[in-house]
Every structure is written in structure tokens, then in C-alpha cells.
């Protein structure tokens, strides 16, 4: 699960957070904030909305952590909250405005030390329709199954599969039209069929 892998907090920190310790929650935030912001940014694209998801996610973590039983890893639980908040934001946007306005052209925030091919890929990802972008990120990067994606989005497994195929095709087309650097990278190595 991408940025959440390898991240953990001590059991003592978790217990302190469950008792309401502000410092313990700060430690949890420091551990998972970048991963939460990354998944939010990839799904909702707009940095302002990603910040909202970041805040809403950790408010929910603080609110609900007392009930966290450890059935899954803490990072898995936090990631699920972040994904749910992101999809809720996307759902209100793509259902409410789909028939009124085209999706706005959003310039994705830079993630830091991205190579040119990575920037092309993030731009191509941001240019996908919201549903396809969500499916491809959740499936390819976060490791969700089609059944899990279907449950999260309220859609069917076949919807998830078709959106994934559509997303892959669109990403290949976008990268083929924009790739001219000649640089060697995993993105540049993608062959166009």
C-alpha cells in the first residue's frame, strides 16, 4: 500500500493516543501525514482539496482511534479513512456537476523531486476523469482489489475493471504524445501499442 508501507508507531504511542494524548496524536500525524496527503492529492488532484482530506482524515483518526481494535495495521486503517474521505469529495463533485460543467483543468501540485517523466505521468493521471483516476490509483498503487474498489465507490466490479482498462489506455496515449525527452525511466520505457 504504497506510502503507508513500512510506517508504524509504537504500541505505547497508540495506547496514549487512544487515551486522548495530543502528543501521541502528533506522533501519529508525523508518521502518516505524507502518505495521507499523497493518496488524497493523487485522487482529488487539487492541493486545496487534498489539504481538506488531510485534515478531515486526521480529525476522524483522533475521533475514532479509541475504537480501533488492531484487526488491521494502523496504517491500513488510516489509509482507508483517507481514501473514503477522498472518494466522498469526488463523489459529490462528479455526481453533482457531471451534467453541468466539464471537469476543471487542474494543475497538480509538484510532489518534490519529480523527474520529467514522473511529472508527465502525474499530469496524465490528473487529466483522467475522476472515476478512472481513483480506480487506477487504488488498484495499481494502493493494492485494492476490484471488489474492494467496487465496495468503496458504490459501483460494480465490472465498472472497476472497465475504468482500469480505460485509465491504462488513456495514460499510454498521454505518455506517448508527451514523451520526447529520451530519458531512461520506467515511465519512458512504456511501449505504445
Amino acid at each position: 500500500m504504497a506510502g503507508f508501507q513500512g510506517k508504524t508507531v509504537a504500541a505505547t504511542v497508540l495506547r496514549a493516543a487512544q487515551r486522548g494524548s495530543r502528543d501521541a496524536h502528533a506522533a501519529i500525524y508525523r508518521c502518516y501525514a505524507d502518505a495521507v496527503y499523497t493518496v488524497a492529492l493523487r485522487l482529488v488532484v487539487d492541493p486545496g482539496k487534498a489539504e481538506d482530506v488531510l485534515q478531515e482524515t486526521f480529525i476522524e483518526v483522533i475521533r475514532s482511534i479509541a475504537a480501533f481494535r488492531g484487526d488491521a495495521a494502523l496504517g491500513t486503517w488510516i489509509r482507508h479513512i483517507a481514501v473514503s474521505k477522498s472518494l466522498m469529495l469526488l463523489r459529490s463533485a462528479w455526481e453533482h456537476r457531471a451534467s453541468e460543467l466539464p471537469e476543471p483543468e487542474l494543475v497538480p501540485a509538484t510532489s518534490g523531486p519529480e523527474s520529467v517523466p514522473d511529472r508527465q505521468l502525474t499530469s496524465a493521471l490528473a487529466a483522467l476523469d475522476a472515476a478512472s483516476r481513483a480506480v487506477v490509483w487504488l488498484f495499481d498503487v494502493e493494492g485494492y482489489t476490484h471488489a474492494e474498489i467496487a465496495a468503496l465507490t458504490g459501483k460494480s466490479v465490472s465498472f472497476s475493471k472497465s475504468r482500469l482498462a480505460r485509465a491504462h489506455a488513456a495514460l499510454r496515449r498521454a505518455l506517448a504524445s508527451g514523451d520526447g525527452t529520451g530519458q531512461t525511466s520506467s515511465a519512458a520505457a512504456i511501449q505504445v501499442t
Partner: protein
Amino acid sequence: MSNDTDIARALHDIPAAKAPPGEWTEIADRAAELGLFDAHPTANTRRFWLPLAAAASVLLAVLITVKLTPTPAPAQPLVSAEARAIDVLMRQSQLLEAWLRASPPGPRVVTVGTASRETALRDRIAAIDWELSEPTVEHDDAVRARLWSERSQRMRELVSLRYRTLERQDI
């Protein structure tokens, strides 16, 4: 190796983004205001000025009214528990909207995060209103109860956001 695998690997290799600085302070302050941390008084107490004090007293009156909303009298026709809950939630939502209309206007300049959060809340409330207007929802008390519950929650968050914005303006 398939092209889809190459795309998946390339997406996986995109560097992670860094969370914007300063977010934890906002989150922690908001959580503290919501009473989500343990009950240790914070070192930073704040003084309330007259416009904010007036808004606070009105908000208190609204919340007390919401809490004291009476249950339906026995003479009224029998209605489901969900229908009664919907009536209470509708009243809460209306009272919170009335407070927003009556509260002092917020500052013209706010942070991007605050503006985005307010927009997101208003968008979500609009989406809920749209769902409530759907004919299939009109006669489904369970769905209406869920939607009105969320609407009331989002309205409380909007009120809280406005209140905190006014509070910062007066400090």
C-alpha cells in the same frame, strides 16, 4: 511484461508528496475545540471580544434550543421513529442556517485551507440537498434520516468553521 504492469510500476514509483507545513496545528486546534483530546486545559486561553461574544451567545441559544426540542405530543398522528428523528434533524439544520445568516460576516481574506474547507462543506450540503430532492428518496425514511443526519453534521462543521474564523479575526 505487459504494458499495464509497466504503467502500474511507473505510478508506484512516483515520489510521495509532502504534506503542507502547519497543517497539524490547525488539526490539533480543531480537535481540541471539538473536545477530542483528553480534558487537560490548554495553555493558550483566548479572550473574546464583543462581536464574537454576541455571536457566541446566539450560538449557545441555538444549541440549547436544538437540545430542548420537544418530542411530538401524544395527540399527534403516530409516526415512525425515523420520521421523528428527521423532524429534529431538519430543525437543527434550519437553526444552524439561521445562525450563519445572523452571524457577523467573516473576514474578506482567509487562508486557502479555510476557503477550500468552506467550499467543500457547502458543496457537500448542496449534494445532500440534491439527493433529498430525488423522488426515490422522498418516501424512504431510512435514507432521508441518514441524509438529514449528515446535513446537520456538515452544518455544525460550517458553523464551527465560521466561529473559528471570527475568533481569529478578533484576536
